[in-house]
């Protein structure tokens, strides 16, 4: 599989603050990636650099094997939809679509029109008069209908209700199946998209924290629940990333594979093993704690 994006020791520094600090990862063709992390972790900065809207201060970024800056070959294949995207206020919805049609080589007019209907957008309404959710829908429609080989969604759902969000996930998956491409989803609603994501990259405080297949990641942690003492006994010698106690009961989230031996041990101790959702795992890994390195 060829690499669509290759980020090597990418650094972006503002005066003395490092927004992105020596981050390296690569994005393979035809997969859906989740770029996750807390607010201000540096996700948007990384995506801005990939799409040549910001300049890096160190390292290297290659997109489709080339440097993206002023590179027609590369840029014409990228569609980057961000939450903060400003559309000219005097445009109508249909004007934005018209410009997108002129710019994105794979633009599908009919598909865009059907999406406008699905998302209930008034095509003749001016951008200035759209609600926050409608504005997000405009971005989403462009992201889908552009069918760009590299499509990046940066928190595209702001102001969208649950119905519209699930419409987004449905359409995304449908269209991705019919027209495979590389998609990067940056989101806080991890549970909602966890089924879509094939690979997860987590950025925390400008550094790469996790770069793992979603499947592998899911099996990497487990929560044990039971009497506090027993939980402690079970957890000793294991990497605990989260602890909670309610009265005499306690729970601990453990990192690392839980094999047959551990399962048996838990059973004899009277402990319950529960899977950890992707969201829980990432929340716990990115919550401020002094030590939280993952291999």
């Amino acid at each position, binding site marked *: 599989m060829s690499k669509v994006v290759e980020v090597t020791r990418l650094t972006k520094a503002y005066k003395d603050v490092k927004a992105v600090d020596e981050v390296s990862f690569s994005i393979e063709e035809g997969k859906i990636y989740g770029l996750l992390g807390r607010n201000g972790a540096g996700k948007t900065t990384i995506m*801005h650099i990939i*799409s*040549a*809207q*910001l*300049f890096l201060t160190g390292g290297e970024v290659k997109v489709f094997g080339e440097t993206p800056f*002023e*590179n*027609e070959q590369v*840029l*014409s294949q*990228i*569609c*980057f939809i*961000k939450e903060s*995207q*400003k*559309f*000219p*206020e*005097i*445009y*109508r919805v249909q*004007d934005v679509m*018209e*410009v*997108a049609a*002129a*710019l994105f*080589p794979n633009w599908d007019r009919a598909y865009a029109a059907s999406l406008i209907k699905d998302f209930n957008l008034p095509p003749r309404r*001016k951008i200035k008069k759209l609600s926050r959710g409608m504005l997000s829908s405009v971005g989403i429609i462009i992201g889908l209908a552009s069918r760009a080989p590299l499509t990046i969604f940066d928190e595209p759902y702001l102001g969208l209700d649950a119905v519209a969000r699930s419409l987004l996930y449905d359409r995304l998956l449908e269209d991705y199946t019919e027209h495979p491409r590389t998609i990067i989803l940056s989101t806080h609603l991890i549970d909602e998209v966890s089924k879509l994501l094939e690979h997860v990259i987590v950025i925390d405080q400008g550094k790469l924290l996790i770069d793992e297949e979603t499947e592998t990641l899911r099996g990497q942690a487990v929560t044990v629940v039971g009497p506090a003492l027993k939980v402690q006994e079970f957890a000793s010698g294991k990497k605990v990333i989260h602890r909670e106690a309610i009265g005499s009961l306690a729970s601990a989230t453990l990192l690392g594979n839980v094999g047959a031996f551990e399962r048996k041990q838990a059973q004899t101790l009277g402990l319950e093993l529960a899977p950890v959702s992707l969201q829980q795992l990432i929340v716990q890994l990115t919550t401020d704690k002094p030590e939280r390195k993952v291999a």
Partner: protein
Amino acid sequence: MNRFNGVLKLHTVSPDSKFGWMGLPWLILFSSFLINLILSMLLNKDKGLYTGGLSSIFIYMFIAGIIGVNRTFPFALGFSIRRTDYFLGTSVVFCLVSLLDAVLLYLLSFIEFNLTDNWGTQLHFFHLPYISDGNALEQVGVYFFGMLHLCFLAFVITALYRRVGMLGLYIASGIIFAPFSILTILATYYNWWGDIFNWLGQFSAFGIVLLLCPLTALYALASYGLLRKATV
């Protein structure tokens, strides 16, 4: 090429942007013309009425340039348009609008001076002494290069703003204006003004706008250089 067309579309796709480039400036100019026409009917016809109302369209184009670029550049970057294509497309829009305006202004000047005997009221609005000297091509040239100069001045100011932000813009204008202020003070102190105006006076209006052309080119180059380094 595809993307270059996209930039043209970017500036002209909505009815409001078309109106902004071609509708509003003419509306402003015509309202100024109408007021002056009514005034000229009321005033003494022997003296004639000379007005500077024509300048409104030039001032407007300068503002339209600033608004147009500021509105579309972040959007263009967000839609993965190359900065170079944005610069070229925007420059072409500036040229086309300036050319169209220049031809229309010349036609109105022609109607005023040659066809209607100054609208029958001795109003000198489009055909002005000095500005309208020279042949048809030169008159169109005066409007065209004059307007183009203002458009690219707007372009370079906005590009500078996009590159360095508001504070940077203040500092840069300080740096640019300081030598001018010093020169002005020196010119007054040493009585250079007479010589300066004498020197300028030897040029026709067309000669003056030709002098502006290298400056316009400089703005264009600077805009391009700044945009290449500008971020969202």
